[in-house]
C-alpha cells in the first residue's frame, strides 16, 4: 500500500526536483527573462496610458490607475512569457521527440503526461519565484499595482493561477502529442502563440474586445490564462461571476487534461521512435 503510493508519486517528485535544478543551472537565462518582462511591462503601461487618454470606450471600462494595474499584472503572470520558459517547455519536449530521446521517457515507470506536467510545473514554479515574484514586488513598491482586492480575492487568485497553469500545460501537452504524428507542428505552435496573445488577455484586456470577439474569447480556454486571474486579483469579479469564471477555468483545465489522455491513447500504439 505505502509502497504502491511511493512508486506512483515519487517519480513525479523526482522529475520536478531535477527540472528545478536544471532551471537553477540556467538561472542566467531567467535573469534575462526578468529584464525583458520588466521592459515589456513598462512599455505596455505607457502604450495603454496613451490609448486610455485617447479613447472614451477604454475610459468607461477602466480608470487610468486600473488600466495600469491590469497591464502590469498581466505581464507579471504572463504564462506565455515569450522567451525562455516557453521555449524550454514546448521546444524541449518536441526536440526530444524529433531526436528519439523520447525513448528514454518510455522505458521509465512513469506516465508520460504526468511526467510532462511535473516538468512544466517545475519550470513554472521557478519562473514564478525568480521572475514573477520579484517583478510583483518591484511594481508593488512603485505603486503601479495594488494589493489583491481582499484576502479572499488573494486566495482565489492563487486558485485561479493554478487553473491557468493547468490550462497552459494542457495546451502544451496537446501540441507535444501532435508532434509525435506530425513533423510540422511549428505552424500549430505559431497559431497558439497568436491566439494566446490576442485572446488570453496579456496584449489586450478581454473586456475591451469588440462584442463578437468578446463572446468568442469568453468561451475559449485562452482567457483562463491571464485575464481571469488578473480580473480576480483586481476584485472585478464577484459573486456568481467569480464562481462562473473559476468554473470555466477549472473546466478547461480538466477538459484539456482528458483530451490529452485520449489523444495519447490513440497516438501511443502508432509511436515511431526515430534513430539507432
Amino acid at each position: 500500500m505505502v509502497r504502491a503510493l511511493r512508486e506512483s508519486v515519487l517519480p513525479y517528485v523526482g522529475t520536478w526536483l531535477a527540472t528545478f535544478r536544471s532551471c537553477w543551472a540556467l538561472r542566467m537565462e531567467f535573469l534575462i527573462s526578468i529584464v525583458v518582462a520588466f521592459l515589456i511591462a513598462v512599455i505596455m503601461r505607457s502604450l495603454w496610458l496613451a490609448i486610455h487618454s485617447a479613447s472614451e470606450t477604454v475610459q468607461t471600462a477602466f480608470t487610468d490607475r486600473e488600466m495600469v494595474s491590469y497591464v502590469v499584472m498581466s505581464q507579471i503572470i504572463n504564462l506565455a512569457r515569450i522567451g525562455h520558459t516557453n521555449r524550454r517547455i514546448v521546444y524541449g519536449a518536441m526536440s526530444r521527440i524529433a531526436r528519439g530521446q523520447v525513448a528514454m521517457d518510455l522505458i521509465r515507470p512513469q506516465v508520460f503526461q504526468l511526467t510532462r506536467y511535473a516538468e512544466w510545473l517545475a519550470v513554472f514554479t521557478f519562473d514564478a519565484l525568480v521572475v514573477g515574484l520579484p517583478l510583483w514586488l518591484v511594481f508593488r513598491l512603485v505603486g503601479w499595482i495594488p494589493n489583491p482586492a481582499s484576502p479572499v480575492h488573494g486566495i482565489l487568485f492563487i486558485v485561479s493561477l493554478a487553473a491557468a497553469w493547468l490550462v497552459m500545460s494542457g495546451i502544451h501537452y496537446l501540441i507535444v502529442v501532435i508532434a509525435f504524428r506530425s513533423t510540422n507542428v511549428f505552424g500549430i505552435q505559431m497559431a497558439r502563440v497568436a491566439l494566446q496573445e490576442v485572446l488570453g488577455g496579456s496584449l489586450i484586456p478581454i473586456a475591451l474586445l469588440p462584442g463578437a470577439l468578446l463572446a468568442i474569447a469568453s468561451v475559449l480556454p485562452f482567457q483562463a490564462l491571464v485575464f481571469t486571474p488578473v480580473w480576480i486579483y483586481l476584485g472585478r469579479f464577484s459573486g456568481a461571476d467569480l464562481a462562473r469564471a473559476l468554473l470555466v477555468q477549472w473546466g478547461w483545465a480538466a477538459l484539456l487534461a482528458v483530451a490529452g489522455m485520449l489523444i495519447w491513447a490513440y497516438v501511443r500504439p502508432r509511436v515511431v521512435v526515430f534513430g539507432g
Partner: protein
Amino acid sequence: MEETVRVSGLSKTYRAERRRPGRFGWLRSFLTPEYVDIQALEDLSFEVLPGEIVGLLGPNGAGKSTTIKILAGIILPTGGGVSVLGRDPHKQRIENAREIGAVFGQRSHLIFDLPPIDSFGLLRHVYAIGKDDYDRQMALLTSLLGLDDLLLQSVRTLSLGQRMRCEIAAAFLHRPRLVYLDEPTIGLDIEAKHAIGRFLTEISHEQNTTVILSTHDLSDVERVCPRVVLIDKGRLAFDGDLGYLLEHHARERSIQVDLPSSGADELISGLRRDWPGLRYEQFEGRFVVSRVPDRDAVTEVTRVLLSTDGVRNLRVAEPRLEDVIVNAFRSGFPDG
C-alpha cells in the same frame, strides 16, 4: 526454467514516406505522399533464459534496435509477439519498466546541464529506490565502473567513454532483472569496450541480471556473450554458442603488409607454392593475403612474411561480420 524473454515470429514493417523523383518531386510528394513499406523484422524467434548474457549481433540496418524497442515496450510489432518476464511489454509498459534497464548508444539518461549525480538522484525517485538500496548499488557501480571522479562533473564536460560509463550505471541503478544495451560501444576505443564487457560479466554474475547486448562488431561479444543471436535483414541467421559461430563461420582472417621494392615477386611465388589455398591480391598499394583458414595458419604465414627483408606494417584483420553471415546462411543452422 521460465524464460526471461520470448520472441516469437516477430515481424515489424515501417511505413516511410518516399520523395518522388523529378524536379517537382517535393511538391507532388506533398500533395499526394507516396509510402514505402520497410520490412525491418521478419519472423524472428529466440528466447533468453534468466541470467544469460546474449549478444544480439547484426550489421547496420539488421533490425537490432527495432527488436530492442519492441522488447522495451516502446513500439508495437506488426506481427508475432514478445513476452518479457511474463508480460506484454507494450500493454504493461509501466510494470515492465520497473524491472528492466536500458542503454541506447545514441541517447542519454543523463541531464545535460547537471552533473551525473543529479541524474542518479532523479532515477532514485523514478524507481522509488530506498536509501540503503541506493547507497549500496551506487557504491558497487562506482567501484565497478570507476565513476568516482565523474559524479560531480557536469555531463557536458564528460568524454564519450566517461559518459557511457555513467549511462550504464544509470541503467543498472535500480537492480533491474533484465538490461538491454543497444550498441553501447559505438565510438569507444578498445580499452573502453573491454571495460564495458568486463562490467557486464561481473554484474550479471553478481546480481543474476539478464543482459541483451546489441552490436555490429564481433569483437564486442567475444569473452562477454557465451551465446549470440545473429540477425540479418530482419531474419535470424544464427542462434547459439559464440564459440561454435567463430569456429565454423568466422575462421578466415586476412593479413595485410607493405611489400619491399625488391624481392617481392620471390616472396609471393614462395607463398603460392606453400599455401595454394589462399588468395593473394594487391589492394590500395598493400599486399593482402585472405582466406587464411585459422589462427595457426595466420601464425605461419605471418612468420614467413616477417622473415622477408623490408616487409613492413603487418596487420591481421579479424573476420568481418558480413562474411560470417554469408557463411552462416550458406551452411544452415547448427541444430537444423
